[in-house]
């Protein structure tokens, strides 16, 4: 898609109301919103519930199809669909991660993962859906193997971060796990030959990394770049030369490519890189910003420019932004104001 020489607008399509407390996170169900399958979005909240929203084929508007409640006893901080879309995992401040199975319009809690000492902050499935990672305030990152019959087995408990771990995210193509933390670092975890996992890289201030809490991270479509966002008001772009870790060539380290600073003046809580290359951020100034690679720039290093800033996208902090997976330029955002908004990127 060419973004050159055009003007864009982030147009509010719909405002989803129903949660009775702040909304922490949203997640689009994979393989929906395409081929006649209606788009499905999950949201989770301080009201201890998860809501499932589906786009009506007739009206084109999103409706709440299910409320996943009476399982978590505290805030549900994050949610993630399995790649098949059959399951959704929810991470809660009640120290558990719940696994829900979707049959028709029904969602049943089929497993509860215990082990974290206290608040679970984030959950992520690997590309094949065979592994699940969680992280939390107890500074640990856990890896679970998904077994038949909704069984989960703990494969590893990783202690490397020195503070609250805010987010875990699997690489989109290979089984490498990334985590980011209140300790200002991003850690990269890889399985060793002996059925256990270990940290192969830590990206810190010393690597041109962040100087405050790293809240979130996201990958570009090809998986050779990663963007991270932080309380230090910057985004950092990281790149890897070759994705050869699977071919036994050893681990290829991630390197800092550039920083995107000067655009945010409050904490950046969320970042998401769309399949078409647009980076969206959600921040504590209630705004959503979009960045794209600046192709005019002819210096060696790629630079990124602000495509647009949507002021007052919400009435309060924007906690989560997520692009729909099917390239239809839909963006979902979640806020402390208790609402979710669906946006469409349109040229004007």
């Amino acid at each position, binding site marked *: 898609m060419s973004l050159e020489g055009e003007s864009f607008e982030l147009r509010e399509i719909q405002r989803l109301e129903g949660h009775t407390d*702040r909304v922490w996170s949203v997640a689009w169900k994979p393989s929906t919103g395409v081929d006649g399958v209606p788009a499905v979005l999950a949201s989770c909240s*301080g009201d201890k519930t998860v809501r499932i929203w589906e786009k009506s084929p007739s009206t084109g508007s999103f409706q709440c199809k299910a409320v996943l409640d009476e399982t978590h006893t505290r*805030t549900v*901080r994050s949610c993630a669909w399995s790649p098949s879309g059959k399951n959704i995992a929810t991470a809660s*401040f009640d120290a558990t991660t719940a696994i829900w199975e979707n049959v028709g319009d029904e969602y049943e809690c089929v497993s509860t993962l*215990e*082990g974290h*000492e*206290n*608040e679970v902050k984030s959950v992520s499935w690997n590309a094949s859906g065979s592994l699940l990672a969680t992280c939390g*305030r*107890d500074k*640990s990152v856990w890896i679970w193997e998904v077994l038949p019959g909704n069984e*989960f*087995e*703990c*494969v*590893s*408990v990783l*202690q490397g971060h*020195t*503070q*609250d771990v805010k987010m875990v995210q699997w690489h989109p193509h290979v089984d490498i796990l990334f985590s980011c933390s209140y300790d200002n670092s991003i850690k990269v975890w890889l399985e060793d030959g*002996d*059925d*256990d996992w270990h940290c192969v890289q830590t990206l810190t201030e010393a690597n041109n990394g962040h100087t*405050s*809490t790293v809240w979130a991270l996201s990958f570009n479509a090809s998986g050779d770049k990663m963007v991270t966002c932080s309380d230090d008001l910057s985004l950092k772009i990281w790149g890897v030369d070759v994705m050869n870790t699977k071919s036994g060539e050893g681990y290829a380290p991630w390197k800092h490519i550039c920083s995107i600073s000067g655009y945010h003046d409050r*904490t950046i*809580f969320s970042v998401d890189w769309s399949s078409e290359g647009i980076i969206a951020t959600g921040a*504590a100034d209630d705004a959503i910003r979009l960045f794209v690679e600046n192709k005019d720039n002819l210096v060696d290093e790629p630079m990124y420019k602000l495509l647009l800033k949507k002021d007052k996208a919400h009435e309060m*902090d924007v906690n989560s932004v997520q692009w729909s997976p099917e390239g239809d330029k839909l963006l979902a955002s979640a806020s402390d104001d208790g609402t979710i908004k669906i946006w469409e990127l349109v040229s004007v």
Partner: protein
Amino acid sequence: MSEKFSATLRIGDLNDYIAPSQGCVVSLKANSNSTSSTSKLGKSSSEKLGRPGHAVKSGETEPVKISLKDCLACSGCITSAETVMLEKQSLDEFLSNINKGKDVVISLSPQSRASLAVYFGLSPLQVFRKLTTFFKSLGVKAVFDTSCSRDLSLIESCNEFITRYKEQRSTNDQQSKLPLPMISSACPGWICYAEKTLGSYILPHISSVKSPQQTIGTVIKNNICQTLSLRPEDIYHVTVMPCYDKKLEAVRDDFNYPVTEVDSVLTTGEVLDLIQSKSVDFGTLEESPLDKLLANVDEDDHLFGVYGSSGGYADTIFRYAAKVLFGKEIVGPLEFKAIRNSDFREVSLEIGGETVLKFALCYGFRNLQNVVRKIKSGKCEYQFLEIMACPSGCLNGGGQIKPKRGESVKELIQSLEAKYMEDVVVTDPFKNPIIKGLYAEWLDQPGSEKAKKFVHTKYHPVVKSITSQLQNW
């Protein structure tokens, strides 16, 4: 918290230092006039609150003294304050008790012996003799061996297992039945985690038998002291252990009545520090005769003990159960099969194509999580679990001597495993003459009232305090 504790204790811990974000509850209680920070933490969501550096450290108002006992009773962190631990159970304290004229008695663990043997390139027997020389030169009265008291723990564990197994099979539908699987109780990291985090559902599974450390304590202070003509209150009993968590075990209230069984725990690494601080050439040190009163050494000066470098609980109980319950005498090493990884291994007994016994070794936090999950969901197929908090078990304890430069942890563990059984004659604990003697003159028989009084203990779920739950980081 200190890296020195087992990983299991560290996961149970909330903070690396007593920071206000996840403050020490004990200090908050002590400084009740400074609890404003608590009420702040009680607010709806502090997920997005500012950095910890902005807040006031509890120590800045008034220093708070926290003892290890406070930490054990608390559901918050374990404590990072190494000084808290080292104050009461340190080399300085050890030396000062010798100087004070206390009757200092040492009990040496076989894992520590192996660690020092690998370090100095000696045999475990040589290390035992040289350490006896070394400690006695400092004024220590006797140097004993916890593989001796471990045989007593093992016999009581065998007896407890058979009792549980038969109770489960009996038609008598009493509520008081103790459940299977029975879980070993020798690892203090595991016990602490079970009490603080897992709580009441798991505790009935844990064997009530005291660990070899506490068993040798009770034997020394309640029985052997008479043979030695010493008064229990004059004895300062120090154990040498592969593990820092043992220091926490020693201060449990259950092990301090009527007398303190273990006054101090030194790790293998601390003993090495002591040897080096005295500028002793350990390799050339003279070898003294051993204190055979409580040591697994036969007349020909051969060490003896059981298979299994983490105490041999699964191995010993499996053999005993096979013999007593099914009439099968097993000779030679048992075949433990790795299930997921080398730290999760099982052994089973088949009779007529049917599996009648299935035991497992389960070391390290991740494997522990999976068996605990199975027990909670009622899907655990084992009758006995030897759980140890550390990967590779006790030889890899946090108190052991670290690998030499260029040596991997894996290589060191392999050397330790080999060294551990070097010159050790494998012997059935029931044939240990010292333990037979203790039963004959003191404890009657396994599982007796006296054995229960002296060699068994209880576990207590730690109730989560409100203050520890208020923190909503």
